[in-house]
């Protein structure tokens, strides 16, 4: 009898794992968001877009005072100049993204023709290259300034990443990003999920880890630690360095798929970048 119970239990656990593995993006997202809402019941759902400040009242006051004279303001101004400055052929980024570049809500998306995730940073550099200009470097500097301007003009747009059902490669990219998020790496043996899901809100030395729900809404970011602006992929690389894993290439497949997954998980929130973070 005991053996039958054990076998049944093992089967049930096995099926549970199997069902979990087979759960689609919609179910993943619902379970993901529900997890944070249960874990942080005092945080209004829309406030998760504010990162760690959505769960840390004592730091929020300081952050709000920083936001009164935000350190990313210069980046927005510089980004505006770069956005409207003419290429050698007389065109500008405005010819690709409209007069204000308020397109944040369209990214990232699945580019069916090329079979890859398209990020806003990549789109900016492809616009430049298509007009005979050199691409910006991926992680900081001009790319962060230009996208700060574009994100600022896009504030309030809804995060609504789609995983097209008519292209299995899109789901594969999503699944790749999902696996990346939950997989431990580096000598310190951490997954993104360890810090930003399972122990979100806990202290790691002097820092409280932020919830991953809302992680993708506020980029680019001015980080006090960097004393400069940086893109989401710069942050991914920094996290990997922290856990002693070699970072992947910014805008490479790994980080682009990770961005696809992380942003999809924040569907329903609003884009609110650029932002200031510790």
């Amino acid at each position, binding site marked *: 009898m005991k053996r039958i119970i054990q076998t049944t239990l093992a089967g049930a656990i096995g099926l*549970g*794992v199997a069902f*979990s*593995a087979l*759960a689609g993006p919609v179910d*993943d997202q619902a*379970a*993901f968001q*529900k*997890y944070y809402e249960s874990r942080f019941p005092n945080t209004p759902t829309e406030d998760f877009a504010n990162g760690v400040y959505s769960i840390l009242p004592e730091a929020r006051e300081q952050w709000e005072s920083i936001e009164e004279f935000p350190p990313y303001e210069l980046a927005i101004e510089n980004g505006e100049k770069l956005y409207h400055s003419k290429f050698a052929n007389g065109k500008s980024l405005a010819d690709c993204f409209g007069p204000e570049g308020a397109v944040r809500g369209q990214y990232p998306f699945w580019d069916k023709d090329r079979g890859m995730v398209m990020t806003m940073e990549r789109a900016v550099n492809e616009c430049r290259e298509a007009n005979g200009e050199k691409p910006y470097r991926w992680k900081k500097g001009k790319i962060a300034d230009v996208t700060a301007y574009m994100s600022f003009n896009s504030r309030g747009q809804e995060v609504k990443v789609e995983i097209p059902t008519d292209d299995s490669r899109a789901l594969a990219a999503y699944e790749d990003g*999902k*696996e990346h998020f*939950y*997989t*431990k*790496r*580096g*000598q310190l*043996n951490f*997954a993104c*999920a*360890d810090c930003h*899901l*399972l122990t979100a809100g806990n202290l790691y030395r002097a820092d409280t880890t932020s919830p991953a729900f809302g992680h993708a809404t506020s980029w680019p970011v001015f980080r006090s630690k960097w004393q400069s602006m940086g893109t989401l992929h710069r942050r991914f690389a920094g996290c990997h*360095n922290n856990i*002693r*894993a*070699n970072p*992947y290439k910014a805008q490479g497949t*790994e980080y682009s798929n990770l961005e696809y997954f992380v942003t999809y998980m924040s569907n329903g929130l609003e884009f609110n970048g650029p932002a200031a973070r510790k």
Partner: protein
Amino acid sequence: MKNGLKNIALGLALMSPLAFAGNGTTAAHIEAATGAYKQVAKETSYQWTVTVQAIKAAKKALEQGDDAGARRLAHEAMNLVNATRSQAKIEAETWQMRVPK
């Protein structure tokens, strides 16, 4: 054939740290650790920063004539490569446990 033998030698080195710690020049040990590091990275995409640091430190020690120190660092690098491989294997089988249901 040449590649086959190379792979067997690499496999043996990965499977047995004791075998690896045996004969051969220190330079060969560093090369074996470097090869194993690249192999694991290629197979699993897992790479640890500390392994690269250990390999670099081993090369530097050898250049400075510290053969024993270089050999110790090469072995340390090989141990880190083995740990990386184990991590990749375990994670491939267990990461789904962390997904909220």
